[in-house]
Structure formats: structure tokens, C-alpha cells
């Protein structure tokens, strides 16, 4: 059952201290800014953030970090342009980092959303990021065992949603949205427009509503 929420505050009402929160977006594209701002307001602490980036300038992830709400970040590229907020927290030991190659991050999230607990990948074999990981050979090539990532909440950004929670995205703002929606117990989508049931073409739905728990309209 998908609920259409009146505002972002209602949509993030039950994010609890210590929750694992996936946040969609690649740079600014697909970043669920309004939901993140509501999360800052909401006040949950000790969050584990799973996202490709760790904030840039004073974007919404940087604001959440600056508010001291995040204790751990799982991401591929924390050193974005102007990621000073994260860098200072990290230097001071206020936030820990699990650095994951971007494709492995995506595949771990997709596995979490697909009932696959673990898989093997050739990425990062023989590198520092293979430290402590099981290595195994398939077809004459070394691979690493990687585990699924799941989350308590996913905050994502879509273009349109209907009342069943079916989602469309816009251009490259799609990025992590579809797989994070699958991997979270509670998926919350901010969308530019909520439309009536039947308005979306069932052929073009990218994220079926079964993966989406709450939608909230946040016009561009």
C-alpha cells in the first residue's frame, strides 16, 4: 500500500535513530533535497547514510552531515567538489566511511532489493578495497565476495508517481532511485507531480509501486 503524503515532514516521520538510510542521486541529479531537509528537521541521529556521494558545498546531504545526524557513510565518492563538511567530520573521527566502488555499491543495493544475499564480482580484486574480502576464482579469473545492502529507509526523487506508487524518473536523475526503492523496507519518493491512477503508461513505469511506500509531491 502506497500512501500519498501531504508533506515531507509526514513522509519521514518515523525515521529512527540509528536507521540505515539510502539516499538517491548522483551529484544534484536525483537528490531528494526536500526529503533530506525534512529529515534534518525531524532530528533522527546516528544515521548510516548509503549514497554515491557525501555532500557537496551546502547541498542537502552536506546539511544533514553538518547537523551531526550521520555516524557512518557508505559511498563511492566522498571527495566531491567542495565536500568540506564531510571531510572535516571524517578528519575529526565524527563519521566513519565505508568506501565502495560505484558498480559494487550499485550491485550490492540491487542484490539487497532482489533477495540475493551475496555475489561475486571482479571489481577491486588486488586492490586496497579487497582487504579482508573473500577471493574466489571463476572461469580463471579472481573475484571478490560482496554482500547485499539493505536499508530501513530509502529517500529518492522521481518525476511522476501515481497513487499506487508507480514511479517515473527524469533523464539521468534516475541513477540509484530504482535500486534503492527495491532495497529499503520503507521507500519514500519525492516527485515533481502526483497523478491519478491510470495516467501512467504501464509500459513506461520504471519502479513499480510495490517498491514504494510513500510519495510526496514537491513541485520543481
Amino acid at each position, binding site marked *: 500500500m502506497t500512501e500519498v503524503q501531504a508533506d515531507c515532514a509526514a513522509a519521514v516521520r518515523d525515521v529512527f535513530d540509528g536507521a540505515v538510510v539510502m539516499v538517491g542521486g*548522483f*551529484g*544534484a*541529479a*536525483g537528490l531528494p533535497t526536500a526529503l533530506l531537509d525534512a529529515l534534518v528537521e525531524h532530528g533522527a541521529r546516528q544515521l548510516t547514510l548509503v549514497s*554515491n556521494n557525501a555532500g557537496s558545498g551546502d547541498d542537502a546531504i552536506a546539511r544533514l552531515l553538518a547537523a551531526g545526524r550521520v555516524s557512518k557513510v557508505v559511498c*563511492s*565518492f*566522498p*571527495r*566531491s*567538489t567542495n565536500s568540506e563538511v564531510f*571531510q572535516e567530520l*571524517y*578528519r575529526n573521527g565524527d563519521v566513519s*566511511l565505508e*568506501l*565502495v*566502488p*560505484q*558498480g*559494487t555499491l*550499485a*550491485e550490492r*543495493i*540491487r542484490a539487497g532489493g532482489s533477495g540475493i544475499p551475496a555475489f561475486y*564480482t*571482479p*571489481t*577491486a*580484486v*588486488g*586492490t*586496497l*578495497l579487497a582487504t579482508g574480502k573473500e577471493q574466489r576464482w571463476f572461469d580463471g579469473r579472481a573475484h571478490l565476495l560482496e554482500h547485499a545492502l539493505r536499508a530501513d529507509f530509502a529517500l529518492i526523487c522521481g518525476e511522476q508517481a501515481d497513487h499506487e506508487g508507480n514511479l517515473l*524518473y*527524469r*533523464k*539521468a*536523475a*534516475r*541513477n*540509484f*532511485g*530504482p*535500486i534503492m526503492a527495491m532495497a529499503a523496507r520503507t521507500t519514500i519518493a519525492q516527485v515533481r507531480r502526483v497523478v491519478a491512477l491510470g495516467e501512467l503508461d504501464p509500459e513506461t513505469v*520504471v519502479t513499480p509501486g510495490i517498491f514504494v511506500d510513500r510519495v510526496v509531491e514537491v513541485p520543481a
Partner: protein
Amino acid sequence: MSAQPLNMETVAWRLAQDIPSGSYVNLGIGLPTMVAKHLQGAICHSENGVLGIAPLSGEADEDLINASKEPAGLAAGGAFFDHAMSFGMIRAGYIDVTVMGAFQVASSGDLANWSTGEALPAVGGAMDLAIGARQVFVIMRQLTREGVSKLVERCSYPLTAAGVVERVYTDLAVLRVADAGFIAEELAPGVTPAQLQAATEAPLTIPDAIPTYRASIVEAPA
């Protein structure tokens, strides 16, 4: 080191000549993005879920950015998809060529381009592209700002992937990675074999008859 360093634009042009029309290409952050405008008929992949990514031509759209997070355009026949499919494509070998920058390339083809040991590393999609693409081309200046060769016998920086680099395009030469080390294939305009040798701290073969390539583009001021 007295070699006149080439404008990297020329190097980017030279690299683009080795990418056939119809190839699927991923261009990394930084110098590799300079290759884009010299490609002929290649289809560019951006790891944030785009095929047909193109230089911006028109108004910027915050939802259409390249892997460097800069505003971009989309070629006819392009498509959008999610991150899992984007990297599935990469790992499964659908990207014909990835062009990457590098801190160091070893004569074994080892690539180091994600960390110089700084406190806060970032890896992005570099490791996935390095092991997944069918060919890894590196574009870089041959020397660091301190004048140290980035072509090495063994990388001192942390590896991105082992044994993956096929070709290196520097401001001094075009080089191929072979069993016995680097083989210089062409010299950049104005570079002598001795200059290339002096700027290389790795096993290097320079054939006697090595040609010098001529760039057919007008160079912008360095």
C-alpha cells in the same frame, strides 16, 4: 627534461583517432573529457545511467549531467537506465573503450588512478571501468609537476586494477603495453626519442623508425 610539452588537446585528438566509429566509449573525469569532441561516430556511455551522452548544446538541464557532474547533452538514439544496469554493462564487457586519467601506469599494465594515499580517498567507478572495459586507454601528462615519470616499473600508489592498461597517450608519445614493457608507437610532434627515454622510468622500447604523428587540429594556446 627539455621536451616541449604538447597541449593536451592534441593528445586527446590523437587518442580519439584510435576509437573506431560505432564504439561504445566511457570517458573518465578530467583530461579524458577532452576526448569527447574529437570522437567520430562513437557512442558515449556515462556511468550515471546514460548512453549517448554528448557535449552540452543548448540549455543546461540539472537532470542531464555527465560522470564529471557537468551539464551535458544527449545524442539521438540515447537512452537512460539505472545504476545497476549501467555498471552491469561495464562489468559484462559492453564498453569497448574506457579512457581514464592516471597517477601512474606500470609497464605490466597496472593502473593507479584513484588514490595517492591521501587521508580521504574516493574511488567512484574507476575500478569497475578498469576491469570491465574491453580496452583501457590512459591519457595523462608523462611527468608529474615535480618532473617525475608517471610511467613506472611498478606503481607506488594503490592500484585501481592490475594489468589492464592497453595504451597510454601522453604529451610525449603514444605507447602500447606489451609483455616486455612499454613500446613507443609514435612520438608527439617535436619530441625526440631521447626525450621520451629520459621521461620514462620503466622498461621501454623505442623502435628506430618510430614515426612522429601530426595533429590535424589547430592547437589552442597552452
